[in-house]
């Protein structure tokens, strides 16, 4: 059963130095507050996993939390590059960062295999690209029925998955809707999981198309209102596009970034 706790306590308990950690969210419901709490608690040597690392991963990488990144598209959507990510990958600042990259289809299938308790997944993908040459986690497999050669991707089973959802009930059942990406697969694939939510309600009213994570597959639920900002939580608040645009200038320069981190993360206390 999920424990209802504070974000600070949940991160302290669930996220350990050296862990493989997936904070998932495809543009929507990105667990930004949780990522910043990981920075605040100064976790180190994490292997960060995410299909679409954006500015919260830029912040975590720039703060020195990560030694590796497993991903399929790293950028500031609609704006440009992630400067802290690039600085770490190219110059090892503030710490060297190893990269393992995939396609979105490959990453989604890696999570699906992890959630399914299988060692790998099969897909039509990667064929003819230069991507498989740079990772051991893509190979080929022969179909036992047709003899066709297909791509295989290794299962992804993070130590911890962290996602943000609209709401949970008091028993820790979680409900999220809108664009839900790979959040369900990430939680089911991981050894431990944390869900931050906009609010805790007495009763989860059924919603069309919503994903429900029963309390017994979640380790901890923590209330973090606006915890996905500057991304959005459908039916709660909109995407803060200006923040994404502003991030470009803040993140471009090491000193500006460090000052931002000090003011907006280290000196801010979560409740």
């Amino acid at each position: 059963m999920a424990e209802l706790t504070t974000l600070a306590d949940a991160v302290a308990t669930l996220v350990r130095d050296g862990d493989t950690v997936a904070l998932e969210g495809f543009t929507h419901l990105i667990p930004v507050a949780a990522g910043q709490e990981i920075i605040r608690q100064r976790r180190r040597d994490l292997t960060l996993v995410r299909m679409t690392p954006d500015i919260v991963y830029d912040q975590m990488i720039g703060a020195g939390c990560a030694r590796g990144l497993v991903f399929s598209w790293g950028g500031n959507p609609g704006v440009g590059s992630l400067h802290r990510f690039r600085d770490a990958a190219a110059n090892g600042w503030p710490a060297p960062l190893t990269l393992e990259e995939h396609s979105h289809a490959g990453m989604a299938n890696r999570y699906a295999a992890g959630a399914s308790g299988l060692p790998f997944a099969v897909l039509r993908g990667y064929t003819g690209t230069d991507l498989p040459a740079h990772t051991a986690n893509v190979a080929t497999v022969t179909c036992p029925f047709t003899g066709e050669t297909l791509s295989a991707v290794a299962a992804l089973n993070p130590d911890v998955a962290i996602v943000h959802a609209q709401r949970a009930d008091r028993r820790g059942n979680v409900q999220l809707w809108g664009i839900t990406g790979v959040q369900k697969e990430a939680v089911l694939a991981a050894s431990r999981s944390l869900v931050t939510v906009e609010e805790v309600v007495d009763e989860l009213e059924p919603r069309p198309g919503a994903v429900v994570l029963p309390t017994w597959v979640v380790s901890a639920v923590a209330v973090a209102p606006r915890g996905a900002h500057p991304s959005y939580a459908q039916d709660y608040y909109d995407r803060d596009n200006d923040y994404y645009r502003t991030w470009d200038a803040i993140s471009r320069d090491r000193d500006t970034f460090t000052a931002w981190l000090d003011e907006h993360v280290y000196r801010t206390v979560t409740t």
Partner: protein
Amino acid sequence: MSDNSDYSADEMMTVAAARALVGRTACFVGIGLPSMAANLARRLHNPDLSLIYESGTIGAKPATPPLSIGDGELATTADSVVTSAEIFNYWLQPGRIEVGFLGAAQLDKFGNINTTVIGSDYAHPKVRLPGAGGAPEIAASCGEVYVVLRQSPRAFVEKVDFITSVGHGDGPGHRERLGLRGRGPTLVITDLGVLKPDPDTRELTLTALHPGSDVDAVRAATGWKLAVAPTLEESRPPTGEELDILRALRRDG
């Protein structure tokens, strides 16, 4: 209505890209220029065009062009919102999406796409780009692929530094040998004109010029010895209506 004698090369490119979607059913849309063109097409020529974004939104009808491929408006206006595994496995992979619409950082003469690194040393690139996203499988599995990209020698290269998404590989028969099911890039729309793969050599060949551009200008903006079709078409300039709607989209986006 806008005066259609005054428009930019970028506007011509976007309008030409939107026109390519006339009569199409479904389009897998990349962010940026492809998204702007696809949204323009839906307003102008093809209101029933189903826009599919890799965030899992099928049949999105945004009133304003999205900044990201997962903006809330894509989800709230979509016919259906599905998970990441589903959009790639059930919708893209079997080849049921007619057109994939992509941008690129580098494009080579066989239409191969690079969005990963600039420079020949993967571990120490000159420029680290965002990476693959959905493009490798969009390029592999959509019925055909349109690419929209501003033309310059830096972007249009003899051979891409990294094959993120396969076009026509190293030439005739390569896609077939790889077992790729879609036809690959059939149309490249730039700010100067239109390129299509030659049916025999698979090399991208200049087939149309936008008004005001000429073969020398296109050649100067291409990093390989560009083949030119025996007869060149000339793109129709944007109409006042096309410009009005495009400019309104830009203003809101």
